[in-house]
């Protein structure tokens, strides 16, 4: 985790941190020692963002992701200095960043995310089928009979019935033998860990991959063969299994002031946010 810059006041709408308990207060005090603790004295407020340092197209330490761009837009809008706390986005991410009080905003979380309070959603994307454009496969549903024979790439997460929606959808149809698994985290020692599953389609290692829209959209643009992205149609077999998700910003629970400020920003600067998503090729779908 990086040490944020010189002490400065909080991002205006956050207000002072309000520890809930003596334990929390102690932890927060330790965590904030030497970091950007809120004081009212300095001139420029800071926007403290929790982000992954190696997770394109979302974010990276070099600021090249679309969530970096949205954070920059937000900071500029609030005349705040942008500060990051870097932590890999996986188990423990929220606990060690937002939860530890060292940063205040996660730029992208699902609207129904349990671990944070969420703002109004600012985009809705979908899992997409990714295939070579020249093959004109046109797969748009898990009920497409060809999926029983095509080689399919899909991301996997863990056991104990935690897995990506496409993995669940394939499994429930007994499509297992022709499925190739890719780590949802990728190889973190490489610059774009999430690119592997899209590259596999580009290289012809799999016929079709099922990938979360923003990841697919971004890496498909640098493909050599030309890739087609088709949103996954709602699952007729398991109507409660979603493939499209509303994405919001996440803040600590009990931080309604900040949440309202972000809602206002997302509404007022909607066009600018959309422009950033367009630049990164983030596929969007209509709401429910």
């Amino acid at each position, binding site marked *: *985790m990086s040490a944020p810059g010189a002490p400065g006041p909080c991002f205006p709408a956050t207000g002072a941190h309000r520890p809930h308990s003596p334990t929390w207060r102690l932890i927060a005090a330790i965590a904030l020692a030497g970091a950007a603790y809120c004081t009212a004295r300095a001139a420029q407020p800071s926007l403290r963002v929790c982000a*992954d340092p190696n997770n394109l197209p979302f974010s990276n330490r070099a600021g090249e992701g679309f969530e970096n761009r949205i954070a920059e837009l937000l900071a500029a809008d609030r005349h705040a200095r942008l500060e990051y706390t870097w932590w890999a*986005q996986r*188990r423990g991410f929220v606990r060690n960043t937002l939860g530890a009080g060292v940063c205040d905003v996660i730029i992208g979380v699902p609207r129904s995310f*349990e671990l944070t309070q969420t703002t109004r959603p600012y985009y809705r994307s979908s899992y997409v089928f990714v295939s070579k454009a020249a093959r004109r496969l046109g797969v748009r549903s898990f009920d497409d009979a060809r999926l029983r024979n095509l080689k399919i790439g899909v991301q996997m997460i863990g*056991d104990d019935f935690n897995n990506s929606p496409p993995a669940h959808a394939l499994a429930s149809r007994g499509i297992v033998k022709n499925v190739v*698994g890719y780590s949802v985290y990728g190889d973190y*020692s490489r610059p774009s860990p999430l690119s592997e599953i899209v590259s596999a389609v580009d290289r012809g290692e799999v016929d079709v991959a099922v990938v979360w829209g923003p990841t697919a959209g971004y890496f498909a643009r640098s493909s050599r063969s030309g890739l087609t992205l088709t949103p996954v149609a709602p699952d007729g077999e398991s109507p409660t299994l979603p493939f499209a998700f509303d994405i919001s910003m996440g803040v600590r629970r009990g931080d309604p002031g900040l949440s309202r400020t972000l809602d206002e920003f997302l509404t007022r600067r909607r066009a600018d946010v959309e422009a950033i998503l367009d630049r990164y090729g983030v596929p969007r779908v209509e709401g429910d």
Partner: protein
Amino acid sequence: MMPTLEVRSGQIGFKLPVALAMATVLLACHRQPQHTSAPASARELGGNLRGDPGVLAQDDGQWVMPAKNYASTRFSGLDEINARNVSRLGVSWTFSTGMVAGHEAAPLVVGATMFIVTPFPNVVYAFDLSRPGAPIKWQYDPKPLGASKGVACCDLVNRGAAYADGTIFFNTLDGRTIALAADTGQPKWITQLADINKGETMTMAPLVVKGKVLVGNSGGEFGVRGWLVALDAASGAVVWRAYSTGPDKDVLIGPTFKPFYPSDRGTDLGITTWPGEGWRTGGGTVWGWLSYDPELDLIYYGTANPGPWNPEQRPGDNKWTAGIFARRPDTGEAIWYYQTSPHDLFDHDGVNELVLADVKMNGGETRKLALRADRNGLLYALDRTTGEVLSAAPFGFVNSNRGVDMKTGRLIPVAEKAPQQGVVVRDICPAAPGMKDWQPTSFSPRTGLLYIPHQNLCEDIEAMATSYIAGTPYVGASVAYKAGPGGNRGVVTAWDPAAAKAAWTIQETFPVWSGTVVTAGDLLFYGTMEGWFKAVNAKTGDLLWQFKCGSGVIGQPIVYKGPDGHEFVAVLAGVGGWAGALVSNDLDPRDATAGNGWGAALADLKTATTRGGMLYVFSLGGGR
């Protein structure tokens, strides 16, 4: 050492199906034979403690490997502290590690030095037991990559070091095995084995056999492919590596492989029992315990659960995950394998320890047993020469399986308790952490009882909640653990392998996540998650003494003889681990699924203890 057990007339027979076939198994418990080859005590050796760690382990003055000896009995022959005087047990000295993650490691004692390894950042301390207050002799900070905390998930524990030939061997969370000179703490070699960037970590304690350091990886939840590696103890070079999935040549399966059951025979089952390429990311990590039988020249260890797919995505037995391997230590070649949970549905890793004991059966034959208290709730008695299951009986309430088919050796699943997508399946017993997790048992040759620290938890599973990782919404399982029948969440069971039933049990409020140790003073020591460190009568389970530690105890107690010739008991306190993450990671117990399913089950743990690592050393009268 292998405890030798002989028949005592009038003992109760097996009450298992197998008993019909193999007749009544009788065993009795006699004082362990004196070892003529027992080395001079550490002090007489002047601290120059070379030679076979298996022989060194026979000296009850020391504790040179977490399981005490190659047979993993965690039995100490010391009896100065016993039922008559244990009430006088008091704190001799303490040491704060200053760390707040779970402390699962066993201290080691070699000569007049004690060694501990902490949770991440895996600092090793050596204490001079010959001086008042046991001051720090040296300390070594391996400076593991801070990223291993974030990249390598949530489990920051370390289960201990191992000593051999003047060297301390231990693993770091960021995937290195390190050899330190025991007298100075200077590193002799460092070998990078696991790659945190792929989700691999190392948390297990090494075992040193015949000049080889045996270590394995953790991280099955990340699509890691499990392995056990033998490193040359002198140089740190990899001698052999045995994978838990894939082609026979990777698993080190060759002509000497003779599994007992037909379902484990065939070519490349590590590929053919998986769909497609599933074996490449299939799990079967090796994060638990190893045992060794010098006579048979076999090492024994378990492989973890298959992953990272849901069970329905990986039809087949998913070999060689969730089972037990016997291998030659020199070459790694597999001799036999037995799968405790074919096509595991419940995260029932097969990594729990194997306690080796020789048992004289009814009819006069002596069987060399490996006893395993498994995650799936069954207590297995295996013939450790062949891998045959001689008995498998539940040691708690189990409804997710109906035991083992004694003909085929296969676990009999209960279909209605299998997790299903989109369906809430209630009251699956045991829960994912199993009837017993990593926390090791002990075995007393005096009482003939196996002392099992374990859980009494069931779970409800619904594979539906939406969650979030790495910019990818995913469908998480909503899992909630809860107390099993009786309402107590923890149990200590003294298991009589002869009768295949419990001799006595102790109910505990929280899961008993510490190891146990048993002594020739017929005392059993263990800790509780709320912080009690207890001594009970090993014959009856009666509580004889207890001390409230500053934090919950999930470590492994040890027993040794100090430089003053007196018996000491040591344990690391410091709640955490999988069960204690609510406290050590400050999770929100209002979320029933926090820390996997522990939120609901242990919501009251945060009011019962707080985190913080501390070494406690006890002796009669204390204060020495």
